[in-house]
């Protein structure tokens, strides 16, 4: 299940209990595209219940970042686990968008 909450200009997406990996990210990709198409410019991905993100999931986040940046928006990742924080730092994702932990 994907939870979406809106607060003024900020839209928060929480993939509840889902890993963001090649086999499961189609629904999240479609939801994020829909949100951006609706005009959201400040997108927050809440990873509080996500345990694993693979290279396909990283690609999805980069794709969202690229789209939002072109539209003058921004992406942030919050509540990443220690393992995911290390992964994002290893791949220099923090050079693109804000990444914060639990």
């Amino acid at each position, binding site marked *: 299940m994907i939870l979406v909450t809106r607060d003024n200009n900020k839209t928060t997406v929480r993939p509840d209990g889902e890993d963001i*990996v*090649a*086999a*499961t990210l189609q629904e999240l990709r479609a939801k994020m595209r829909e949100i951006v198409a609706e005009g959201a410019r400040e997108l927050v991905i809440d990873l509080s219940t996500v345990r*694993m993100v*693979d*290279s*396909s999931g*990283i*690609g*999805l986040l*980069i*794709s969202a*970042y*690229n789209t939002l940046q072109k539209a003058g928006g921004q992406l942030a990742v919050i509540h990443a686990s*220690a*393992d995911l924080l*290390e*992964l994002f730092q*290893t*791949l*220099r994702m923090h*050079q*693109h968008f804000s990444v914060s932990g639990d």
Partner: protein
Amino acid sequence: MPCASAACGLRRTLPATLEAIEAFLIEFKRSACPAERADRFAAELLLREALTNAVVHGCRSDANKQIRCAVRFSPAVLLIRVKDDGEGFDWRSAQRCGASLTECSGRGLEILRCYATHVRFNNKGNVLTILKRFKKGKPQ
């Protein structure tokens, strides 16, 4: 059941689908050895990337093709060997180029390089061998 100290292993032939990978990963996680949380994460990530690479790039997601996977693991070491039915790929070129910061793909090999102790492809590029030594196990 997790093994306490001796080496364990899994050997499976899988159809080249992402669903088959997920089923195999569930089996691997039930039996995986590393005691440290970060090591378990690294072990799953490496196996996941190796298998996804074989399905998506090796077999072009053709479910009629097969992937042979052998995994051996102890608390100190993880050894993965993945062979796919595909035509192979130019891993030398892929390794040289890498992914630029804003590219949406190409990070699988980067993850392997960053998380594994050794990564090796055969000449054709359809057999991938990964060795990971865990910090909390035997010293490297």
